[in-house]
């Protein structure tokens, strides 16, 4: 029988952790880009894009990530596409992140006082100019803290992709736990791994939030 030293376990988990990190970053960045498009649709003047964006957001915020992944995974294979797990995981998490990020950013855009739009309009700025020079710079300042906070949710969300067979940190952990019969040790290490990835982000998000409040009250 093959024996596992602690280093063997940690080394394999580190490999899984690297994939978790990669998947989180890809999903977060691509999801952010998609969210930007969704955001503009969601706050558009015309009703059809607004409605469509809202439906998209509600569907992704109202269903479990696990079932989104399952539906995507099995739905695409119905179309005759052979979807590898990493692709389904990446696309699924990207769609998931885009819905949440769009909604977070919409809140920030809408919390910019109405008067700012009107001031822009009275200076004869077009919609695009008002957005670019007046609204977005202010909304972005408010959006940074919750966006960093949401990054934690994305990292944690990657754990769910283990269920469709993507060999990230959790999946690696399950395989090692099954091979070593040391579930407490292995899942404990997995948890520590996620904590090390997430805690700095949470901490930073909290600090940003505090700083934002401080500037607002002064």
């Amino acid at each position, binding site marked *: 029988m093959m024996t596992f030293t602690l280093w063997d376990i940690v080394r394999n988990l580190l490999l899984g952790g690297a994939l978790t990190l990669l998947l989180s970053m890809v999903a977060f960045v691509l999801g952010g880009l998609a969210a930007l498009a969704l955001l503009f649709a969601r706050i558009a003047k015309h009703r059809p894009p607004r409605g469509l964006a809202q439906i998209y957001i509600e*569907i992704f915020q*109202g*269903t*479990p*990530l*696990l*079932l*989104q992944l*399952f*539906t995507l995974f*099995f*739905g695409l294979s*119905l*179309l*005759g596409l052979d979807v590898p797990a990493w692709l389904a995981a990446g696309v699924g998490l990207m769609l998931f992140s885009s819905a949440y990020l769009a909604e977070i950013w919409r809140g920030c855009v809408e919390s910019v006082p109405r008067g700012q739009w009107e001031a822009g309009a009275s200076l004869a700025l077009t919609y695009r100019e008002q957005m670019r020079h007046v609204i977005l710079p202010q909304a972005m300042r408010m959006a940074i803290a919750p966006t960093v906070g949401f990054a*934690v949710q994305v*990292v*944690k*969300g*990657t*754990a*769910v992709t*283990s*269920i469709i067979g993507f060999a990230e940190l*959790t999946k690696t*952990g*399950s395989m090692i*736990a099954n091979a070593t019969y*040391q*579930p*407490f040790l292995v*899942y*404990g290490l*997995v*948890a520590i791994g*996620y*904590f090390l990835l*997430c*805690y700095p982000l*949470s901490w930073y998000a909290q600090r940003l939030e505090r700083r934002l409040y401080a500037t607002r009250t002064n």
Partner: protein
Amino acid sequence: MTYQFDFSFIYEYRAMLAHGIAYTVYLTLVGGTVGTLIGTVGAICRTWDIKPFAGLYQCYVELFRNTPFLVQLFLIFFGLPSLGIRMSEGQAAILAIILNVGAYSTEIIRAGLQATPKGQIEAAQSLAFTRWQIFFYVMLRPALRKVWPALSSQIVISMLGSAVCSQISAEELTFVANFIQSRNFRAFETYFLTTAIYFAMAFLIRQSLNLIGRYAIVRRPLP
């Protein structure tokens, strides 16, 4: 494409689907209620800095908020038995949900408690409110009123998150879906239908929580 969609399995498996829905609702209700209670106690300890609970709660909150629910579930169900704590998959699932909701609601309710204006507490003191009355009527109730939307969202998120409990074979809705699709090989239809059920449940739970919030919490105390 010649694929024929077939949703006829719904009728055949209606009892199982109902069982799965009921189980998910049970996880949400018990997890939400007990978790919120744990969160309220935690928020009180953290706000008044009651030693040593304030510190313990902080560790608990940070640990649970910064690790995935799935890993917490695995650690409880697969990991704890090696420390001699053995539980059924149902017990592990409900425990994990309670602890998860507890951690999030601690932070949510704490934010509400901290937003109590100092002047209101002083006003209550000058009206000879007891300590307990001040806490309940001036701090906790307005705090819950303020954070109720955030708390409701968190409970809905936990309901959606409970789908991963299928991985330790707790018999909730996703577990039922996995079972059905392993029988009829209609994976897409089964998961599509299950997703739709979750969507409807999320909507209904959100509406019920809004109603509860309106009648039980936002309602002003009688004069």
